[in-house]
């Protein structure tokens, strides 16, 4: 007789792989509760394979946003916005609770890198879902441009700080320091003059094992600066945007589209009546010597009858800040989501007293920081 074996005893014994398929669907606050059920469950929930599996599932099924509301005199005020469009306040921690100048540098795999000025400059890597953070010891350098990213190849998170060491003939001489979460330490990275004279005009954006900044140099014009986390190498990437009215990096944003680095550009047309938003996607070739290592494709171009500032691509939508629209300016923050397929837009008013907001891709995770 042919038989397939299965244990079907009562009480039913549920193997770990099945338990983890159930657990990965649960929000972190429920999983914290499950840790208190028994020792086996506590161990399972802290295993790296489970943390990874849950992260993968969550990134796919419930990609969220982290919204930083800028309100006068308030400390860092953060909200999550999940795929069901539920807004939830993020519970703060004491180090940033008292800080007026705290900003979010980046958000990767549920870890949020925050720069705070409480007493002195602090850099934190913080997982708000599990209320854990790590304080990175560092000499104060308030003017440094930071970046936060993850590389799956080396399984490490890195914080990059680009600051001035001095001033040369062609502009500032750059010093780059990198903190690795796995080694718990800062080290200086040799960039061999590549960044000398380069003005970094944004905070870094981490994706696909690299961190990207907007850069400018008198002789070269506008371009992107990239740092590859595994190789610890920098490169200068040509910008897709050549039109002079589009090069203002304050209006351009990095995003991820179809798992690739993307760029959102914004300009107004007419008598500043219409917003024109373009979405560019970067392809990166294997040949590191080739001139055409990087190529850009314009995927979408959207016009909108108001001033809409594109912030990030989320699911199939461009998330925009519409705070400066005249008709709604008294009613706090307005987020407009423009659907890339249908071109329809949806509006969310979510904060009465805010004056502006920053938004980051976010995924709730159990990724530890200690």
């Amino acid at each position, binding site marked *: *007789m042919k*038989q*397939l074996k*299965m244990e079907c005893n009562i009480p039913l014994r549920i193997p770990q792989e099945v338990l983890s398929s*159930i*657990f990965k*669907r649960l929000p972190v606050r429920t999983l914290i509760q499950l840790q208190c*059920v028994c020792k086996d469950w506590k161990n399972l929930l802290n295993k790296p394979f489970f943390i990874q599996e849950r992260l993968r599932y969550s990134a796919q099924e419930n990609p969220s946003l982290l919204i930083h509301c800028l309100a006068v005199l308030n400390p860092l005020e953060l909200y999550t916005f999940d795929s069901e469009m539920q807004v939830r306040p993020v519970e703060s921690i004491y180090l940033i609770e008292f800080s007026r100048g705290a900003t979010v540098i980046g958000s990767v795999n549920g870890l949020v890198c925050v720069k705070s000025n409480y007493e002195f400059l602090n850099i934190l890597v913080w997982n708000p879902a599990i209320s854990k953070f790590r304080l990175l010891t560092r000499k104060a350098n308030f003017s440094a441009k930071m970046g936060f990213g993850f590389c799956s190849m080396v399984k490490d998170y890195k914080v990059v700080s680009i600051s001035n060491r001095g001033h040369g003939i062609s502009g500032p001489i750059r010093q780059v320091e990198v903190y690795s979460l796995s080694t718990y330490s800062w080290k200086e990275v040799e960039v061999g003059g590549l960044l000398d004279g380069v003005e970094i005009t944004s905070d870094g954006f981490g994706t696909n094992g690299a961190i990207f900044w907007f850069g400018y140099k008198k002789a070269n014009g506008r371009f992107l600066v990239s740092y590859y986390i595994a190789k610890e190498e920098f490169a200068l990437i040509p910008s897709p945007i050549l039109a002079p009215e589009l090069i203002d990096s304050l209006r351009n944003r990095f995003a991820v589209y179809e798992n690739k680095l993307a760029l959102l550009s914004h300009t107004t047309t007419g008598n500043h009546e219409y917003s024109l938003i373009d979405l560019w996607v970067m392809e990166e070739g294997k040949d590191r010597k080739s001139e055409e290592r990087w190529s850009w494709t314009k995927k979408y171009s959207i016009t909108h009858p108001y001033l809409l500032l594109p912030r990030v691509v989320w699911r199939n939508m461009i998330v925009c800040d519409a705070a400066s629209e005249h008709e709604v300016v008294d009613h706090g923050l307005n987020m407009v989501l423009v659907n890339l397929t249908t071109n329809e837009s949806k509006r969310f008013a979510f904060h009465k007293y805010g004056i502006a907001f920053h938004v980051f891709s976010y995924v709730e995770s159990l990724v530890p920081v200690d």
Partner: protein
Amino acid sequence: MSSSVEAITVLSSDGDEFKITVSAAKLSKPLNWMLEDVCFSDDCDEVPTIEVNSKTLVKVIEYCEKHAPRANSGASDSDAEELKKWDIEFMKMDVKDILFHILMAANYLHMEGLYDLACQTAADLMKGMTVSQIRKIFHIKNDFSSEEQEQLRRQHPGCSFD
């Protein structure tokens, strides 16, 4: 495979006979292998046993028969909608008894759709439960010492234990 075979007979772990159509059996790889064995074998009297109890197997077969037309031929969006509603109704079963048996059976029979559905149902069920309620449905003994228990309560003030 002979086209004359439309259904096969299988035995549950309790020894009851069940019929499952060929198209429904295709939802499960192990069932499909069994089916090929039965069809190609000269000795067709042999009835394969599936190590799933009768109560669970009835539901598994019901799921297979319902999903077979769509799985085999593809379906329109309205069919998919209808099937989703049917799935929700199908999962409104007595949890203590059979949900976890179905989950295990779906895992053992490599039925991805049913497995995901059962996992999601189990997850939704656990969402609002206290620690002791969860222990009860999973038949788990609290193996933390009273000191450890006290520490957990301190560490996670937001958790509801009782």
